[in-house]
C-alpha cells in the first residue's frame, strides 16, 4: 500500500531523510522508532504528502505521489481522505468553534447528508468516549481531550491508513492505556497504522513490526518488534535504552533499561 524507494529529503541543505526504502502492506501496524531529530516526523509528513522527496519515489496504492499530482485538487483530496494524520501537537489540528463542528468538518466536505454526518459524529464521540465534550470549545480542553478530538476528526473521514506522530506524548497513564487499546482494535478492523514514538512501553502491543532510525537519518533496522526490543546493542546505538546503577532489593548493580519501563 505504501512503497517508499530510496527517498532522501533535506530542509535547506540539512538532511532529514537519507536513502529510505520501505514497504507497508494494507492492514499492517508499523512503528517508527529512533532518537530525537532522526527524521521520524519528516517521514510521516512525506507519507501524508506534506513534503515531497528530493530524490527517490513514494507510491501510495500503486500511484506515485508527486508535487504535480498533489496540485491536482481531485487527486489531492482523495489521497488525503485515504490517509489520516494525527499531528504531534493536537492543538494545531483544531480550528472550529465547537467539538461537534470539528468532527463534522471532514464528512460535511465529502458531501455526506447531514443526518449521516450527525451519525458519524455521534459514533466518533461514543467510540472515543467524549460525548460530554460535544459542544465545548476545543482550545479550552486538556491535552488528552484535544488528542482524542484530533483522532475523532481524522476517524470521521474514515481513512484507510491512520498515521500518528508521537501519539502517547503528554498523556496521563490511563489515557495512554486507552489509546493503545483503541489503536489495537482499530488495526484489528483491517486499517493500516503507522506510528512514530520513542515510548517503548506499549510498542509490542500496538505493532508487530518496527523501523528503527539512526542518527544519520537512515533506517538502521526493519524487523519484528520482539527482535528489535531484544537487540540491546542496536537500541543503545540509537539512544533508545540507557544504562545506570540502581538497587533491586538491596543489591546495587548496573544494567540497561528501556525508556518508560
Amino acid at each position, binding site marked *: 500500500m505504501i512503497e517508499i524507494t530510496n527517498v532522501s529529503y533535506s*530542509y*535547506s541543505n*540539512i538532511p532529514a531523510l537519507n536513502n529510505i526504502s520501505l514497504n507497508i502492506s494494507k492492514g499492517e501496524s508499523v512503528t517508527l522508532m529512533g532518537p530525537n531529530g532522526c527524521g521520524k516526523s519528516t517521514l510521516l509528513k512525506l507519507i*501524508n504528502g*506534506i513534503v515531497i522527496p528530493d530524490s527517490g519515489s513514494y507510491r501510495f496504492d500503486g500511484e506515485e505521489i508527486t508535487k504535480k499530482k498533489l496540485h491536482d*485538487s*481531485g487527486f*489531492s*483530496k*482523495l489521497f*488525503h*481522505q*485515504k490517509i*489520516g*494524520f494525527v*499531528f504531534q*501537537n493536537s*492543538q*494545531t*489540528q*483544531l*480550528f*472550529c*468553534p465547537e467539538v461537534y463542528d470539528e468532527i463534522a*468538518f*471532514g464528512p*460535511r*466536505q*465529502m*458531501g455526506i447528508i447531514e443526518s449521516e454526518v450527525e*451519525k*458519524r459524529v455521534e*459514533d466518533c464521540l*461514543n*467510540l472515543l468516549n467524549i460525548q460530554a465534550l460535544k459542544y465545548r470549545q476545543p*482550545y479550552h480542553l486538556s491535552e488528552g481531550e484535544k488528542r482524542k478530538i484530533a483522532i475523532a*476528526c*481524522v*476517524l470521521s*473521514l*474514515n481513512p*484507510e491508513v491512520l498515521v500518528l506522530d508521537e501519539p502517547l506524548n503528554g498523556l496521563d497513564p490511563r489515557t495512554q492505556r486507552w489509546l493503545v487499546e483503541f489503536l489495537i*482494535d*482499530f488495526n*484489528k*478492523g*483491517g486499517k493500516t497504522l503507522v506510528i512514530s514514538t520513542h515510548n517503548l512501553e506499549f510498542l509490542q502491543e500496538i505493532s508487530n513490526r518496527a523501523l528503527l532510525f539512526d542518527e544519520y537519518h537512515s533506517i538502521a533496522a526493519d524487523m519484528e518488534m520482539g527482535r528489535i526490543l531484544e537487540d540491546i546493542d542496536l537500541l543503545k546505538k540509537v539512544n533508545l535504552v540507557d544504562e545506570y546503577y540502581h538497587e533491586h532489593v538491596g543489591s546495587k548493580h548496573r544494567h540497561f533499561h528501556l525508556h518508560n519501563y
Partner: protein
Amino acid sequence: MLLKKVNLQIYRAEKINIIMAEKNIPDWLLKNEDYLPQPDRDTFINKSIRSLLSVLSHIHGQSRHKTDLFGINAAFSLMFTILFIVLLSVSRSLVFIIAANVYLLLVLCLLKAEDIVVILKTSFGIAVFTIIILLPTVLYGNLYSITMITPKVFAAVAAINILSRSTRWHSITGAFKTFFIPDIFILVLDITIMYIMMLGEFSLNMLYALKLRSVGRNKSKHTSLSGIAGTMFIKSKEMAEDTYAAMECRGFTGEYRIYRKFKFSFADAVYIIANALIIFCFIYFGKYLRK
C-alpha cells in the same frame, strides 16, 4: 482449497465484526469509503503555506550560521549600513550613486548564490515598482527624479538585504547595545524574533492540518481561516503569559543586562577602509562632480 480460503475469509470477517461490535466500532469505519471528491480551489491555503515556508526557512537559515558571514563585527555592519543609506539618500551626485551600486554588487558577489538571487530579485522588484510610480514625472519631462531615485532605492534595498543575509539577527539586536539602546528594548526585539518563528511554525502546522482535512468542497473557507486566526491569537496570548510567568520565576524584576564583548578583527579593518572610501567618494563626487 478455494472453499477453505473462502471459509477462512468469512471466519476472519466474522471475527473482526465480533471485535468491533464489542468495542462499539461503527460499521462505516470498517468499510472502505466509496468517495469521489469534487474539485475545489485551495489557492489561498497553498499560497499561505508557501509564503510562511519561505519566511521560516529564511529565519532558520539565519539561526544556522554559527558566526556572522565575513566575520565582521555586527556593530560596524549595522552602523555603516545605516550611514550608507543616509549618504545615498542625501547625495545629489549620480556618479556617487553608481559607485555605491558597484560597491554593493561587489559585496554581493561574495555571498552564496541563493542569497544573491533572492537579494537581486527583491531589489530589482522594488526598483521596477519605483520606476512605475515615477513614470508620470517622465511624461512631464522630469528625467532627473527617475534616474536618481531608482538606483538609490535599488542600492538601499540591496544594502539592507545584504546586512540581513550576512549578519545574524541576534548579532544585529546585540549591536544595538553599542548605540546605547536600552537592554530591555533589545530583549523585546530578541523575544519578538523568537515568537515570529514559533508562531510561524504553529500556524504553518495549522494550515497543513486544514489542507489535509480539506478533502472535499469547503463552502465556508473564511470560517476555517478565521478559526486558525482565533487559535493563533489564543496561542500567542498563552505563550506571552507563560513567558511572563517563567521570567518572574527566574527572578526577572524588569532589569535586563546584555553582555557583549567587543572584538576587532582584520575583517573589521578591511570593512572600515572600504566604507571610508565610500565616504570619501561621497564627499569628492558631491563636491566636484555634482550635476
